[in-house]
């Protein structure tokens, strides 16, 4: 028994050595395999959710994402909808948004890119406030807080 334990221990240690030697040269391949695991995707609370609508204007485009209400065990009651403007944006952005696609405008948003001021006028009781409004590498992004119910 004692001998078996010793052999097993030494075997385990050598296995560790081998794993370490192949770890760095194989890191890229291992990482790619790990990245394919089903849970290896960033939560929509961070990515902003999938694109739901894509609107094209003269010089720029507007993406309205699917509302995000992700919670731990169940959906949470408060969430947000993210809107991205891309391309050659005007100094003053004015847009009326229908985020749920019911044909009714849910809110009006005005962004002054010079003084970074964002104003929101809500036409839907579920639309709360501006959570984030920021310039991005591709243009501008806004997250508007929503209530689910």
């Amino acid at each position, binding site marked *: 028994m004692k001998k078996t334990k010793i052999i097993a*221990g*030494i075997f385990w240690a050598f296995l560790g050595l081998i794993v370490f030697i192949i770890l760095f040269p194989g890191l890229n391949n291992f*990482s*790619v395999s790990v*990245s394919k695991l089903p849970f290896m995707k*960033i*939560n929509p609370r961070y990515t902003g959710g999938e694109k739901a609508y894509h609107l094209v204007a003269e010089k720029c485009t507007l993406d309205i994402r699917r509302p995000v209400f992700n919670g*731990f065990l169940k959906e949470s009651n408060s969430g947000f909808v993210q809107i991205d403007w891309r391309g050659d944006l005007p100094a003053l952005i004015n847009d009326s948004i229908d985020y749920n696609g019911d044909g009714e405008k849910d809110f009006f948003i005005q962004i002054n890119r010079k003084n970074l001021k964002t104003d929101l006028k809500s036409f839907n009781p579920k639309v709360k406030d501006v959570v984030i409004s920021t310039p991005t590498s591709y243009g501008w992004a806004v997250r508007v807080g929503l209530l689910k119910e």
Partner: protein
Amino acid sequence: MDNILKTTGMKKSLGKSLLYTLPMFLITFMFLTGGKPNFSDTASGIALLTVFILVNVLFFFMHFTGKTDKYRAVLFIVFALSLSYTLINNMLEVRKAMYFSQADILECKIPFCHLVIPMMILPAAFTKSIIFPGSIIGGFANISSMVVLWLVATLVLGRGFCSWGCFYGGWDDGFSRIRKRPVIKKINELWKWMPYAVLIMVILSAALTLMPTYCSWICPFKAVTEFEQVTSVESATKAGIFLSLFGGLVIVLPVMTKKRTQCSFLCPLGAINSLSNKITPFTVKIDKSACNECFKCVGVCPLYALSKEDIRSGKVSIFCSKCGKCMDACPQNAIHYGIKGVPSGTLKNFSRNLFLFVSYLFMAVFSAGSIINTFHGLLKFIF
């Protein structure tokens, strides 16, 4: 004479030490240069060469002098400093500031660090997603490769990760070496369990809020890497917490106690790593027949991993990070690296050689990139 023989038990002759360094020399050469060193840019060439030599000289001295921690700590501390330099430099180059903006979070461009891992587990299991605004693959410090590195290192080294792999540990390790004698000698044993309490709290709060709460609210190393732009009372509070924890647990207390207090009393990943000590092949063992209970090891252990009772019972606690400081201090050579299943007091040299090769290889290769980068930056700055 007998005593001298015992104290110098791990020392090797010049020839033997060179021989033991040779495999490390070859492997680090391959890993650092990819087999083809590139000297087209002088500064890069010098940086690469310096780091390559530094890494191998330190390893040589571990064998030649028989001391472990003394040389490990050099690379470990340099690693921590250079990683902070690399991260800050990266932030300054890409963002022209040491903080990240809301846009960086929105575009998932935040570099990932292993301290997030405990908080990812429950949300990954229940929501099938990662609660961190970083990149899954590709780009600087992506999530997949950090997870692979940490997982493998923890499975093989256990809490050894905290002395051979963590790029933050070098900060409090460094500060703990500043004074010759500690000002604060005794600390309530209860605090040793704090990392587990922190672990439970951050796992729960992260799951319930789907936010890496430790990173957003607690991590002291935000002070030397990157943090959220201060735009509100909340972000100012966070910055205040980061700075005071860094000042208290990474600078002041380590200097006063000569211990790694951040790692001992706060880090939740350290808690997980301690648990993994149970399954790793390498351990630290006490040869009771050689030990004369002088308790020098207890005094020097930087992680409160040894108590007099542990020595008497012949078992090192799960908090051990395999740093080797106790072994350097032991006049009897009684505390030593071991392999699970192998009785204490036997195969001491074999176990040490194997462990040092594995752990040092990990640290050398993991740290080389950022140390080279830092040297390169310094050279460019000076000349």
